């Protein structure tokens, strides 16, 4: 009994100090000057533009993750070929690399002095310090989420149902849409939830390529940083509280989905 209380006490204290109290601090700071200041910070023109850009990045990065994830999982989980484990390791690379390095390589590739710099200047397309760079950085850090979810799932499910469908005369696309997609839809959704959270919250990689042009190339996390560095704490925490809501929503959706999948089996 003593031991049990000790374990619970430690866990509650540790998770409380490291996870729960900081979360509460965001809300406390955000409302320090009252609800009026809080909502004023959210309705600020630059805040709204940052929200718009973040939603745009997420709207592009999530489908990219889904398409890549499904293709990669189909290749990896349905076939045997040499170099497979190397391929899986490469899929994990964006998670192993520092986000700052991810941003750096985009600058080296698309910057004015970068490998494709002359091409960029000639064509008049700006990538670095512009929206395309931010989108690319977001895709880079978030695309493996769906693949990482689907590869083990499809390996575990096996491909007998697909083989059965093929023997019944189904074409490749019919097999995919009618048999595989219904089997993996919750896995895709799970990956989409994690991918969205990362896409909306990415900071390091986006920070390097953004150039921090207010009202133009600022995402929500970058906007938080700027406000914070200007000592505009109430506004910084107010905008941050939006991201806290997104994070809590992510956790809730994730838990609900885990619960649903567990109860289906």
């Amino acid at each position, binding site marked *: 009994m003593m031991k049990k209380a000790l374990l619970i006490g430690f866990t509650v204290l540790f998770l409380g100090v490291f996870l729960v109290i900081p979360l509460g601090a965001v809300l406390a700071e955000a409302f320090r000057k009252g609800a009026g200041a809080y909502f004023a910070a959210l309705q600020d023109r630059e805040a709204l533009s940052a929200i718009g850009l973040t939603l745009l990045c997420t709207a592009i990065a999530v489908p990219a993750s889904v398409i890549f994830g499904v293709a990669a999982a189909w290749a990896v989980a349905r076939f045997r070929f040499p170099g497979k484990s190397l391929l899986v390791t490469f899929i994990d690379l964006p998670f*192993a690399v520092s986000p700052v390095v991810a941003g750096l390589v985009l600058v080296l590739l698309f910057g004015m002095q970068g490998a494709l710099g002359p091409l960029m200047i000639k064509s008049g397309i700006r990538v670095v310090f512009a929206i395309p760079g931010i989108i690319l950085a977001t895709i880079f850090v978030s695309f493996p989420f769906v693949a990482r979810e689907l590869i083990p799932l499809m390996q575990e499910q096996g491909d007998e149902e697909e083989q059965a469908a093929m023997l019944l005369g189904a074409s490749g696309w019919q097999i995919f849409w009618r048999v595989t997609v219904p089997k993996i839809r919750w896995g895709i959704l799970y990956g989409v939830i994690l991918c969205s959270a990362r896409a909306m919250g990415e900071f390091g990689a986006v920070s390097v390529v953004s150039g921090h042009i207010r009202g133009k190339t600022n995402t929500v996390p970058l906007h938080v940083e700027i406000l914070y560095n200007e000592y505009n704490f109430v506004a910084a925490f107010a905008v941050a509280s939006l991201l806290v809501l997104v994070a809590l929503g992510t956790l809730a959706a994730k838990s609900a989905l885990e619960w649903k999948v567990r109860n289906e089996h």
Partner: protein
Amino acid sequence: MKRVGVLPGFGLTFGFTVLWLSALVLIPLSLLFFRAASLNLREFLDVVLDPRAVASYRVTLFCSLAAAIVNAIAGPIVAWTLIRVHFPGRKLLDAVVDLPFALPTAVSGIALTAVYAKNGILGSKLAAIGIPVAFTPLGIIVALTFIGLPFVVRTMQPAIEDLDPTVEEAASILGASKWQIFRRIIVPALLPSLLTGFALAFARALGEYGSVIFISGNMPLKTEVTALLIVTKLEQFDYAGATAIGAVQLAASFVLLFAINGLQWWSARRTEGTNA
């Protein structure tokens, strides 16, 4: 390419996957090494061995290691409690463990700073007893512990779930003491996942940027991490310097990635061995 499998779609999906990875990940990352290699050696070493850079490696390595160790001690206890001990609110706490994954790092950074700064709710009490947290290496360790915690807990939970309680019962029937059961049954079974979780947390900490820069104070030579040094160099348009240090950072990531893959391969082989 010789492939084994009867379903259609290999060419399309494999080709797309390889093309995507090459364009987005492999070619850009190799470009970084290529650029670093094209610096002359003298120049490269000057940047990489500059005292400020070396100090940043030291801070990054030391704080990452310390945070990973804290997580390697607290993580197993948290994971064990969340799996084996039943109490009200357990599910909620379990969900909260993923918070560092879900919360944007910048938000984590300012939140931790608000809590641990001298006027913060915990920071004020700690400062009063002579332990300042924010703007010291300790602050960096707090931030890195925060972001590393889910790696250890989430890696260990399946291993704890897989522990067969009947094995512990069998051991106790055979006359093993609680300590012997812990030492000879539980520790060996959980060690691979603990090491993997530790390595994952350590790897993540080495490259961490967002959650660190607010709480660290970013004093060169003292509390400046390598990731921040790269950003600083980029902001000063010192592309050669950023490239050189970026290459060092990336090389460290690769080494850890292969170490982690090796660990996972080793632990998979070990569990297969015990099941057979």
